[in-house]
């Protein structure tokens, strides 16, 4: 299935602004991240803690919804889903 990945702020330096990824059915956010970490090892410590949890203030959205309010890293992905990845940033 095809997933669109959008990266923002510092993550763009590594991932570019938008890419299409091909994932197997049943893939989760965790699957997607592991795929990214395989290609970009330096990204893992920027996104996950050493215990494998999403770092505080890192924002991962599935179709605009923060995965904190879904099933976290185990959130399932479907064909044509969009995943947005933000490092800690803020404004106001």
């Amino acid at each position, binding site marked *: 299935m095809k997933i669109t990945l959008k990266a923002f702020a510092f993550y763009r330096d590594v991932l570019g602004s938008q890419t299409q990824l091909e994932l197997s059915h049943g893939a989760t956010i965790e699957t997607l991240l592991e795929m990214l970490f395989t290609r970009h090892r330096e990204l893992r410590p920027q996104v996950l803690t050493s215990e494998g949890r999403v770092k505080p203030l890192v924002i991962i959205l599935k*179709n605009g919804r923060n995965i904190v309010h879904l099933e976290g890293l185990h959130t399932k992905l479907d064909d044509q889903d969009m995943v947005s990845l*933000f490092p800690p940033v803020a404004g106001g």
Partner: protein
Amino acid sequence: MNGWTGTIVRVDLAAGTVKKESLPAELARKFIGGRGLASKILCDEVDPTIDPLSPKNKLIFSTGPLNGTYAPSASHYNVVAKGPLTGTIAASSSGGMFGPMLKYAGYDAIIFEGKAKKPVYLWIKDDEIELRSAEDLWGRNTVETTEEIRLATDDEASVACIGPGGERLVLFANVMNECNRAAGRSGVGAVMGSKNLKAVAVRGTGAVRVSDNEAFRSASQRASTKIREHAVGGKGLRTYGTDVLVNILNEIGGLPTRNFRESQFPGADKVGGESLTARILTRPRGCFSCIISCGRATRIKNPKFGGMGEGPEYETAWAFGPDCGIDDLEAITKANYLCNEAGMDTITMGSTIACAMDLFENGIITTKDTDGVALNFGDAEAMVEMVRKTAEGEGFGKKLALGSYRLAESYGHPEYSMSVKKQEMPAYDPRAVQGIGLNFATSNRGACHVRGYTIAPEVLGNPEKVDNMTTDGKAKLDIIFQDLTAALDSTGACLFATFGIGGDDLAELLSCATGVSYSTEDFMKAGERIWNLERIFNLKAGFSARDDTLPDRILKDQVLKGPAKGQVNRLGDMLPEYYSLRGWDASGVPTKEKLQELGL
């Protein structure tokens, strides 16, 4: 006194006299300084029912105990008056150097009363204070005014002034200091203009004494470390500025677009912080003692909009950008420069143009109303032209100068104004972020994000993520953020310091600086006291629970697409609980018991 200087300056503009008064210690302890102290003075001395642009209004510049110390990001002073845009109490905060410089001159606050017969400015050089003629400065923009006053006084003077916007009583005029730092929203610049007061210039050569130097130094170092080590305070804001929020709000479906008709903008990425950094940023800029540096020094290369200056910040990029359907970052930046030079609030300016575009596209106004300019969403040149017309008081610009509510109402359609208490909502769609809607509805100066920035937990996950789509717990969350911010605004610290430090750190800094022992609870209680004080002023001015609401578009029109599809703001689910938790009755009036508890 320590932290405080202990001296307030009172200027009678009509009589042309200046006198110095002592700051009562009990007043300082209870209301801290900045927003709290000035609000207390305003409430004690000004009838809330007056015309805000009459000589009966007072204009108070007020610093906090941390201003001028080496506490991190402690640059902010407040300008307080009854606001002409809203009719509520107005407290506008600004960074830069003005607040610390006033402390170095030896003063906690300046109270301006009455109206000068002719334009004047106040010059303060330590102990010496004098009113000087500003007749030659009237009509000059904020940059020219700042340069000329420095030439006439001291090249290291800090100058807080109005531009043509304040002189022409644009209802959303700012007080600007260091040319680009704005005490914005609510129109305190128009109050200054109504008093024929062009500027306040200060050069102080003293220092701020703190109570326990060693403890204060340690507390400041700990606070600095926390901010530096925080992922946002230490790196994110410096690199991308506040405008980095554009893409986040757009992705969650909370970026108001085309006067809040939609909540996602296809061109968002072109106007976000990533694009700003890549295309127009020349360098980050910080205020006094700032270790964050969120300010953006920028340069526009396109000769059509050419120039250099500061901005845009997130709210500004949104107001002139997505809210007007515009994805031209250089046009947005030009509009920002024009507002800074004229001394006008960018949120209200952009939102008022968005409202006019909405009226135009729906046939309520035509080119006959707009001086021949087709005001379609997405027209960048028309947007910049409307800013210029407003700044110069020309044609349709005179109507825009009244803000969106009065503009839309004059054509029989106030529902086109996306405002609360006549002040325009900032860059967060309350249908996608429920708690910020409650904050807009209850904010004491009309819709405002910096009265209680629940975007931090609801969107950014700071300090922890709460669900933006639900109303559960939002009343309590709003109250915590509102009280914390009211207390923080009274210390002299920048709101962004809270991307790293909290109420406990601020209470410790305050205690070490002043020698008055503030527990975290005392600090939050001071914030609650200030919030209730402001509420009482507004109630006496004629506001009631009826005014604690949101535009019908937000309460009734569902978001049509995107992550927030189908949502409206469910204010009715949150407001009764908010009143109850505040200790107010069902009409939103503080109970006697609550006022006694707060010592009001």
